């Protein structure tokens, strides 16, 4: 029988994978990709809880997360483009001057 725990476990796995990516990747796009994976893990969590508890707010939350994530990707990629144009590369290494 398929239980809530299955989905929570899947979500945790995806989250760990995404986290691993965020921590290891040096290219900004790759970091963004990893963040997206983590976001999806969260989405699964929301929808799973919502469906097993029949609570519509979880679905709505997931919906809004998808919308906002789209905006985030747009802005993130634009920033990436800018960094790339400015530095000729877009690795986390070049962003070591964020203090200034």
């Amino acid at each position, binding site marked *: 029988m398929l239980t809530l725990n299955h989905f929570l476990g899947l979500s945790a796995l995806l989250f760990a994978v995404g*986290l691993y990516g965020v921590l290891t990747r040096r290219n900004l796009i790759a*970091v963004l990709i990893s963040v997206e994976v983590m976001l999806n893990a969260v989405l699964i969590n929301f929808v799973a809880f919502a469906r097993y508890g029949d609570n519509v707010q979880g679905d709505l939350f997931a919906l809004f997360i998808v919308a906002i994530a789209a905006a985030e990707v747009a802005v993130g990629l634009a920033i990436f483009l800018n960094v790339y144009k400015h530095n000729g590369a877009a690795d*986390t290494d070049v*962003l*070591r001057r*964020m203090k200034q």
Partner: protein
Amino acid sequence: MSPLSYAWLIPLLPALGFGVNILFGYRLGKRGGAYLSIGLLLVSTLLATALLVQVYQAAPQWDAHGVVEVTEFESNVVAPLEEEVAGALAIGASAGRVEAARNDLNAALDELHALEDAALVRAADPRFPFSAEIDWLNIEGEAGLPFGFVLDPLAALMVFMVAFVSLLIHLFSLEYMAGEDRYPTFFAYISLFAAAMLAMVMSRNLFHVLLFWELMGVMSYLLIGFFYKKTAAQQAMKKAFLVTKIADLGLMLGIFWIYREFGTLDLLALETLAPTVLSASVATSIGLLLFVGAVGKSAQFPLHVWLLDAMEGPTPVSAMIHAATMVAAGVYLVARTYPVFEAGNALLTVAWIGGFTALFAAILAPAFADIKKILAWSTVSQLGLMFLGLGAFGWTAALFHLITHAFFKALLFLCSGAMIHGSGTQDIFEMDQLKKYMPTTRWTFIIGGLSLAGVVPFAGFWSKDEVMLAVKAAVSTQWSYALLIVIGYGASLLTAFYVARAYLIAFEQPRQDSPWKTAAWNEGGFGELNMSAAEVEADRARESHHLHDPPHEVGYPMGTALWLLAGGAVTLGLVGSPLTDFALQRFVYLGAIPHLEPISAQWLGWVIGTAVAFAGIGLAYRLYREDAASERAPWPLVQLLQKRFYIDHLYYLVFAKPLTWLTRPVAWMDRRLLDGLVDAFAWLVRVLGDVLRRAQTGRLEHYIWTLAATALVLVVALSYGGLS
């Protein structure tokens, strides 16, 4: 149209003037804000006039002769019968005799009612008195504090007077204050001052009376200290504020007590509740507490000390404080809460404080050379007369005097402003035969002076006579009122004397060295109390007296204001005179029906009043016509008067000095301990910031790793907690 539909605008418009002036005054051009203030107040005044007319039309109309008949019947027939019944009961007469006396009394009362009905020309409008309220502060299980207006004859009359006089003072200031840097600020302040007074006299709830009362306190504080660079002004503003605050404590206690007794602060309810709910002793206590507030606001002895120092403010402010607002508030408060006073025995105290202050201030006034200070004492004295009237059951008389006084005192103050403006000095001895140069000021001053002195047919005569008439009538209730008659006429005599003296020296005499300034005992003036010698010197240097030679006459705005007020000072008394069949007394009265004495009972008062006024003027004329400078009294007496009987010195030594010592340790704690603590925190934050700054490496990886490690710690901690 009900007056309620527009009455709320009357205080709101000047308040709007304040808002605009304080926010944008300096962007509206040199005089834009002032014109706006005056325009708004003009609309307010027109509305106030409409209000007065409408309230007058709605109020019951009485036939003068009928009212006189009622009054006579009451005192000649009903009162003796009442005494007879009481007497019969007291000596324990037989039931038959008591019954017979009662029957006689009842028959007389029936006749009285018939007479009252006959005297009523037209009954009141069913909506009269106009009142309305909206929820403002609701408290569960309590009456709460609804915000409301009551527009009865008292309110309507006060509103009209305040708006009209304030308008003219604004107009006067337009020219008088022209040279000042803070011109818009000045207009903002006096606009709100007027608005607060207007709102106060319309308020239906004692709490709101207190609210606007305090707002006036703040505005007077700001205006007295308008020339805040002068140390004397700073001291004066503080003194005025503190002294009135002490009095306000009494007022607040009185209001709290009223709420405890009645469960409401509604003034309309007060009228019906006070006679029934209050015991005599409680009513007396509440009355005395309320009166303490009035004593402070209206500068009555022993809290009169602030008013003279308040002359440090600009002259229009003095006019505002002394005529339209502030000091009138005290009289208004007692008049508004009169049912409480009637239910207790506080009125005799009111009368004696008033009478004593009237004489006390009138004695002091001739000893001063500063025109504004003479007028300040005059205000104290005249307010004393009003309280004397209130204390002697002369409710209408006191309010009548309040209204006429507002006009002639505003006129006199504005005249003094014109004199100062024209001659460059406040000292009457230094003014150089002003009658030659300032005809407008001269004639308006004469009108105001005659009105103040109580000369037929000027306004002051009629109202002052009404007050004395009330005191005379009160003798039948308490013998000591007889003494107060003498005191009242003594004050009137001195009043006529000092105003004539001021006129003769300022307008008739050539310039001379002020004897007060050269007198050895007057070294340092009054400033030595709360100012150091250096501060006094600095103030004097800042004033930089330069006398105008020759003096110049006022311009059109000031002249217009003077003549309009003079018109009031001449004619306003007529509304309370036989010429109009005592229209005012038939309009503003306490109780169910007005109270009018027949003319046969009044003419003696007129004769005495006129005689006293001419005696005072004649005395001044004899003494000062020829030679003004030489002293007329032994200098220790003059010194005693100049130092105001050393009452201020006494307060300073007994209250101010010890308090200053008490505050020293507190000040030390504030400066060292509390400020030190604050500084320590600032230092701590700075050090912490220096440390934490190093954590910000500016490298993206570091941030990500920190984030992940934190998440790990959190999850581990949470899961551990969740599993255990």
